[in-house]
């Protein structure tokens, strides 16, 4: 990891409420290019919400969230921030890939079409070129022969790998994973984690919400423990896992390990 001057993602005092419930209560965080950040924490602690804020699927209420030095979802206009127009928002989101817990593949499209949809419709790449690259991506996630299958004909693990390929096809600067393996049967978890480890090795910047402590320990460059909308503890994953300082971290880790 080289040490770039500015972080790729910067969060400062990020707050977010749903109605009366404050889900994020001041998140401060920097993620540098090439980092693999794992976020762990109990259910309802706001992990998914924070991830969704990073590509503006949810709007933050206050604080600052930046990608590459620019505010996420907003444009500076004098002394105020203006929400981006739909088109600009879409352009912004095309730089950030997201992989969902339940894959969210497009069921009416084949695996290959799922991958080419973004490049063709969003980037305007020619179908031939998009297809050629999609086949390479399928090969990279170990599904070279599965391009013509529909999502319902694939196992959960295969679907999630297609979803990762779909995200990669946009050449994102950053990949967000929201519990990518928690909807999978245990025997299928490994194949997805394997793909993610490969990505980490290749230097992809990733933020991964996960309950896979083993993956966090090996692949993460940084680990965060979140609870009730704040970061309780963060640092080197091995250090946090084997030697947690806070009671809540200890309790959580002993429950999952």
């Amino acid at each position, binding site marked *: 990891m080289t040490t770039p001057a500015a972080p790729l993602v910067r969060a400062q005092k990020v707050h977010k409420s749903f109605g009366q419930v404050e889900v994020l209560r001041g998140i401060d965080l920097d993620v540098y290019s090439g980092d693999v950040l794992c976020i762990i924490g109990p259910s309802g602690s706001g992990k998914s919400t924070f991830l969704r804020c990073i590509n503006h699927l949810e709007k933050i209420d206050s604080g600052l969230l930046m990608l590459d030095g620019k505010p996420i979802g907003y444009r500076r206009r004098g002394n105020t921030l203006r929400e981006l127009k739909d088109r600009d928002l879409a352009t912004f989101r095309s730089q950030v890939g997201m992989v969902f817990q339940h894959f969210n593949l497009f069921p009416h499209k084949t695996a290959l079409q799922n991958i080419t949809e973004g490049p063709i419709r*969003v980037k305007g790449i020619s179908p031939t070129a998009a297809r050629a690259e999609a086949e390479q991506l399928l090969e990279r996630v170990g599904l070279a022969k599965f391009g013509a*299958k529909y999502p319902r004909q694939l196992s959960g693990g295969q679907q999630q790998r297609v979803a990762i390929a779909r995200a990669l096809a946009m050449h994102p600067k950053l990949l967000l994973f929201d519990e990518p393996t928690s909807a999978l049967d245990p025997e299928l978890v490994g194949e997805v984690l394997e793909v993610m480890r490969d990505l980490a090795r290749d230097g992809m910047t990733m933020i991964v919400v996960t309950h896979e402590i083993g993956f966090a320990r090996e692949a993460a460059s940084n680990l965060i423990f979140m609870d009730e909308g704040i970061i309780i503890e963060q640092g080197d994953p091995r250090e946090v896992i084997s030697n947690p300082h806070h009671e809540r971290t200890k309790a959580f880790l002993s429950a999952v390990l």
Partner: protein
Amino acid sequence: MTRDTSPITGGSTVADGHTALTEADELADLRVERTPRPGRWIAIAVILVLVAMLGHALVTNARFQWSVVGQYLFNGFIFGGILRTLELTGLAMLIGVLGGIGLAVARLSENPILSYMSRLYIWFFRGTPVLVQVLILFNLSALFPRLSLGIPFGPDFISGSPNTFLQAFTTAVIALGFNEAAYMAEIVRGGLLAVHPGQRDAASAIGMTRLKSMRYIVLPQAMRIIIPSTGNEVIGMLKNTSIVSVIALPELLFSAQIIYSRTYQTIPLLLVASIWYLVMTTVLTLAQTRLERHYGRSDRSTATGVRSWSLLRSVRTSMPNRGATQ
């Protein structure tokens, strides 16, 4: 239901005289007897008698005047009515579908005023009888002929005197179409809501705008729900067009009425109309069944307990298109 004549197991017939048959072998060779169902036979008998009585009445009762029915069945004036019924159905459904999509999108939009207006529209058009709507619009158009003709297709579409045929036709198309839009709006909305929200998230996440996400991801999936129900609406609309006979528009029913008001052959002409309505709805129903089968395909094959007949059917229907290439 075919099990009654076939042995339980396929092969083991007594080929070898030397080996003694075990009890299981014996059982395997027995045939399954049909379970007696006397109730079913009694029901069939009763129904047959009733059908015979009805048929007898239909044929022998002079009031049906089947010769008159035959005389008018292929009458040119009746054909004109059929054509108008089909035109009305087509145009009203066109307005209904387009209006329905617009209303549904408005209803689901984040803009509270749009959403509220859409709800108000749907509330009004579903809450009052379409017959009343036709009459109101027709009478309004008699009061303000230019206004009513100016609404849909630009101000200079028709510049005639009130209560001409075109005015009745326009009134009918608008009234039926506007009413249908309210029902279609609910169907489209149901279809859009049935698409998992994760699909929109995934579309956004790869950088699609709302419009692209709607067009390439959400609508195609919603269509699976919208199209079969729309088929139902078309069939309903075809019959509903008969309502506009009240404003003297010679669609199928009113054409028949015009004839019998002269000849007093009321029943036979109503039979003629019924026969043609049945023919048209039957054709549409067949088309509808095929549509449903086509659009139900992927749902069936994802269902956990797929029964053999639906598997067979889905294999058959998926053969000609690329869905089958794997």
